């Protein structure tokens, strides 16, 4: 694992990188994507080690695709982001349908743990050498050897009744897995319902007195499989709306990332005005999300006055969003190729928005310096929940969480999309890695975002709002990345026929950030557990892809799309 790349000359650009990577497999460069297929046997872990630990890139996520109808194989794509070279390296692994096993990269990059397990659950590709090859997402009573994201599994398959499930489970005895508790400690369950978590997730804390010895996480309790609906029966433009409903806080960033992925795949040029409007809405969403987070954080620290102040400010931001889009949240503005006509920002609206933003900034600056200098807020956040820079690299953490641990990363700055190509984005980076640093990073980002919206509104050009999207070629890969309030939000698509996606995989930033939480909890006080968990601004629903599809139908009926995307 050590041998590769030490004496090698570091490649200077993406072309040299491509030549350099010939040592490991067959590279193919297409725009921003560097596909690396036919990895030489036994070289995979060296390659991953080289990309993640030596070249300054980071592991982003892995996607499993059932491409048997296309070329007869299962594919696994490991996505690495190399910001310095401006490319995504997609390590393309092929698994034989008869014996779908590939080598695991988790021993080299722990961040890949969940993504690989997700593929094992959904596609049924096994990973050789994975340290915890257990179920992650599928419920314990899901029958063995049924893989929902395979193409031969129908999207409207009715789940067997509970008797049949019990029978199937008896027959197949899936490997349900209970981790062993470390030693003889009290187990404190946090979740699935707990006042500190606003969504159903489950943490197990092993404590000794008030000290946390170890922590475990079980999640994905609300995974509903919207990927399957999107791939099976939604058109390109409908998916944009279901993508927005992945999250109630950062929905627009999901729909933008999705649209960008399709635009990338199809080579659609989005008009500038649409890019500006997207960026403005994204920044509004960021401010909203950070206000919300600050409120929650103060509440968890017992400082309810701060909580009330922040959530009052959040109301103003939602009023502002309502002025622009007609809704306080769920803007519904994105379609593939641009922005819908009615969501244009007229000049009089722009002036109003600027005035409202100035008021919000003034109000915010009146309170926040006092709040963050409060003695007990500092005492409970400084030096608490520390994530060192190397640990942050190990788990590939993203967004404000990474920036508070001294990692300079921001999709807006280093992989500019939408209108961030035309303006300079200030990114705050702190080295402390504690909760206080995360709070300050978000504080600075609120101010920077307000500033950014002003600049974007000043320069908004007059162009059409959307491009022609009548032709979307088949079998194209696309990655759409946005800087969500919580970090890099990545959507991976493969285009299909009949105005439909072949594969869609959204990966929210919390997916990567959550992996670092147990590491931060170890050795801390139990009283600090809620704020440590909350300090990454976890968005469990994003991670799980929750979406309420139809309340009445229950689980026996196929999932319906009416009411969510308003069509069909």
């Amino acid at each position, binding site marked *: 694992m050590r041998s590769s790349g030490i004496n090698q000359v570091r490649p200077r650009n993406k072309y040299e990188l491509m030549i350099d990577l010939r040592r490991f497999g067959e590279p193919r460069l297409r725009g921003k994507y560097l596909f690396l297929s036919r990895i030489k046997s036994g070289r995979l872990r060296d390659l991953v080690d080289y990309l993640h630990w030596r070249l300054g890139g980071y592991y982003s996520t892995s996607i499993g695709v059932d491409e048997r109808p296309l070329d007869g194989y299962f594919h696994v794509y490991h996505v690495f982001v190399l910001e310095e070279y401006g490319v995504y390296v997609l390590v393309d692994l092929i698994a034989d349908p008869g014996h779908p096993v590939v080598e695991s990269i988790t021993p080299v990059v722990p961040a890949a743990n969940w993504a690989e397990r997700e593929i094992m659950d959904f596609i049924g590709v096994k990973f050789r050498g994975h340290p915890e090859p257990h179920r992650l997402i599928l419920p314990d009573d899901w029958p063995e050897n049924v893989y929902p994201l395979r193409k031969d599994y129908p999207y409207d398959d009715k789940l067997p009744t509970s008797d049949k499930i019990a029978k199937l489970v008896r027959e197949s005895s899936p490997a349900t897995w209970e981790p062993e508790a470390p030693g003889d400690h*009290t*187990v*404190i*369950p946090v979740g699935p319902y*707990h*006042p*500190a978590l606003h969504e159903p997730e489950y943490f197990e804390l092993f*404590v000794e007195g*008030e000290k946390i010895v170890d922590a475990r996480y079980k999640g994905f309790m609300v995974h509903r499989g919207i990927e399957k609906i999107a791939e099976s029966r939604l058109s390109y433009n409908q998916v944009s709306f279901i993508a927005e409903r992945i999250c109630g806080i950062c929905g627009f960033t999901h729909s933008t990332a999705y649209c960008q992925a399709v635009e990338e795949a199809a080579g659609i040029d989005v008009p500038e005005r649409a890019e500006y409007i997207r960026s403005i809405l994204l920044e509004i969403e960021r401010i909203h999300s950070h206000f919300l987070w600050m409120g929650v954080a*103060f*509440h*968890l*620290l*017992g*400082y*309810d*006055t*701060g909580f*009330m*102040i922040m959530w*009052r400010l959040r109301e103003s931001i939602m009023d502002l969003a309502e002025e622009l889009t007609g809704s306080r949240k769920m803007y519904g503005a994105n379609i593939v190729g641009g922005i819908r006509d009615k969501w244009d920002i007229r000049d009089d609206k722009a002036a109003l928005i600027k005035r409202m933003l100035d008021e919000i900034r003034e109000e915010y600056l009146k309170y926040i310096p006092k709040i963050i200098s*409060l003695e*007990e*807020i500092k*005492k*409970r956040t400084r030096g608490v929940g520390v994530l060192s820079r190397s640990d942050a690299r190990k788990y590939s953490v993203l967004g404000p969480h990474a920036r508070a641990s001294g990692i300079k990363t921001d999709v807006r700055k280093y992989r500019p999309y939408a209108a961030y190509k035309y303006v300079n984005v200030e990114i705050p980076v702190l080295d402390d890695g504690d909760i206080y640093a995360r709070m300050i990073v978000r504080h600075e980002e609120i101010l920077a975002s307000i500033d950014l919206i002003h600049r974007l509104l000043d320069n908004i050009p007059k162009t059409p709002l959307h491009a022609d999207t009548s032709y979307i070629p088949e079998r194209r890969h696309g990655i759409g990345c946005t800087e969500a309030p919580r970090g890099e939000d990545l959507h991976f698509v493969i285009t299909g026929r009949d105005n439909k996606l072949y594969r869609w995989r959204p990966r929210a930033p919390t997916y990567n950030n959550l992996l670092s939480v147990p590491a931060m909890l170890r050795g801390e*006080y*139990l*009283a*600090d*557990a*809620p704020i440590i968990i909350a300090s990454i601004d976890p968005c469990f629903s994003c991670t799980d892809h929750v979406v309420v599809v139809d309340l009445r139908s229950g689980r026996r009926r196929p999932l319906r799309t009416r009411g969510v995307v308003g069509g069909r």
Partner: protein
Amino acid sequence: MVWLNTLYGVLNACFILLVGPLIDGVERKIRARLQNRRGPSILQTWYDLVKLLRKPAARTGVPSTLFRLSVYIGFVNLLIVSLFIPSILCGGMGFFGDLILFIYLLSSSKVFVLIGSYSSGSPYASIGSTREVSLSMASELVLAEIIALIALSRSSLLLSNVFPVTAVLRPSVLIGLGVLGIIVYIEHSRLPFEIGEAEPELAGGYTIEYAGRDLGFILWSNTIRRTLLTTFLIDLIIPLDVLYHLVIYPVLLFSIMIVFTAIETGWGRLRIDISLKYVKRLSYVMWGVILLALIGY
């Protein structure tokens, strides 16, 4: 005049029982206004209590006798205290050694609830009650020191002889009263010292396993304990006089509670180790003050 004293005691107890939840309602209103909220009616705590007291107490598993009875033992303890502490009327006290009885009953009422809660076996309840016990043990030490100081200054342990302690104006007494104010604040379990319930951390802590009537009595006891502690502080300050108690006492009671509430809204929750450090410091201060009293200041 035993019967008159008894009557006074009963009337005082009624006053405390009724006014405790009312003060809590006023506090909630003020807290809401300070946080730019409208807030509920000032009778809201009473509405809550009436509703809870009418509901059956749902208990999980097979509750121990301790779990079932502790709430009521705690409540009765407080009731006894309110019988002999002069509040709205000055009377009702006068048996030997009742300063110590006062402290004993007041702290045991809390301890009973905590033990009962601990016996439920819920991890949240045990952590909440452990926290609360360690904090109140620390603060009770300081309270004992203050009692010692008062007894020293007035050369008596009888409530009727002790009140008001301000009759002896010494520096040590004044500092002692200041420290008592802080201890009363801590014993009120207000933020930043509200760590036993700690809603966002422990989901209610020591109250988590209680419901319905049981919970109602716990909440009622908490408001009564707060009122009694504040009453004790006021009794040490104002003269033992009918008019003073009828007029000045309620004004002071409400204003102290309001000031405490205002302080509370500016704070977040401290961790148990940090809050214990604060209380420990107070204890050191009190040893110094007792020394001061011993040499006659």
